[in-house]
């Protein structure tokens, strides 16, 4: 981030433009980082659900319902990151 700030400073932008550029890059980083965690979580959740459904197909309905809700709850974290992104940097 500091390197990016030096890079922005070297472009000869005004202080306000530098501030806007730094805010936009920070928001981008925040969104990217906020998307990584839920990505890992959804991968783990779906992997375990698939394993459960393959072992016990008769319980698939229950597993799919809870899996779907789990995915949606995990995705809420990414959406919160996205909202922070649109409020700070868009």
């Amino acid at each position, binding site marked *: 981030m500091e390197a990016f700030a030096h890079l922005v400073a070297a472009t000869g932008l005004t202080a306000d433009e530098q501030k806007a550029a730094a805010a936009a890059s920070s928001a981008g980083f925040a969104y990217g980082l906020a998307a990584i965690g839920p990505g890992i979580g959804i991968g783990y959740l779906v992997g375990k659900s698939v394993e459960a459904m*393959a072992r016990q197909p008769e319980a698939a309905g229950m597993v799919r319902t809870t899996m779907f809700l789990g995915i949606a709850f995990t995705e809420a974290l990414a959406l919160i990151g996205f909202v922070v992104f649109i409020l700070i940097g868009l």
Partner: protein
Amino acid sequence: MTMTEPNPVLTALPGPAPEVSVTKDMVKRGLVVAPLLIAVCGFIWGLHGAYSSAYGVAIVLINFALAAGTVAMTARISIGLMMGAVLFGYLVRLGLIFLAVLLVKDAGWISLPALGATIIVTHLGLLVWEMKYVAISLAHPGLKPVRS
């Protein structure tokens, strides 16, 4: 005697899709509470807030519908495919939401705080509301409401 390992690639789930009925419930409830959300946002952020709130509710409901449709379609083919579709679908849907907001960010009628607040509140609110019914159905299947 050796036990055969379950193969997720060959296992398909051709039965009814529970996530579709869960999503239908959430969409119905979302449409019921949408006027209230729009009114609250309109009260706080004005007319632009009301328009943005309606747009946010639409984004959330379409996102749920896309997620459920992807799972339901791919589970009929193979649960391995379903896993891939869920993971890539997550990225694609995040991209679509980003695109939907990017398209309107400079429009005169948009209020980004109202849009952001609506997205989070609607998404989490509908999920928690649905959770209550799903938890009751799983714990006490006899109490599950039947369609008349």
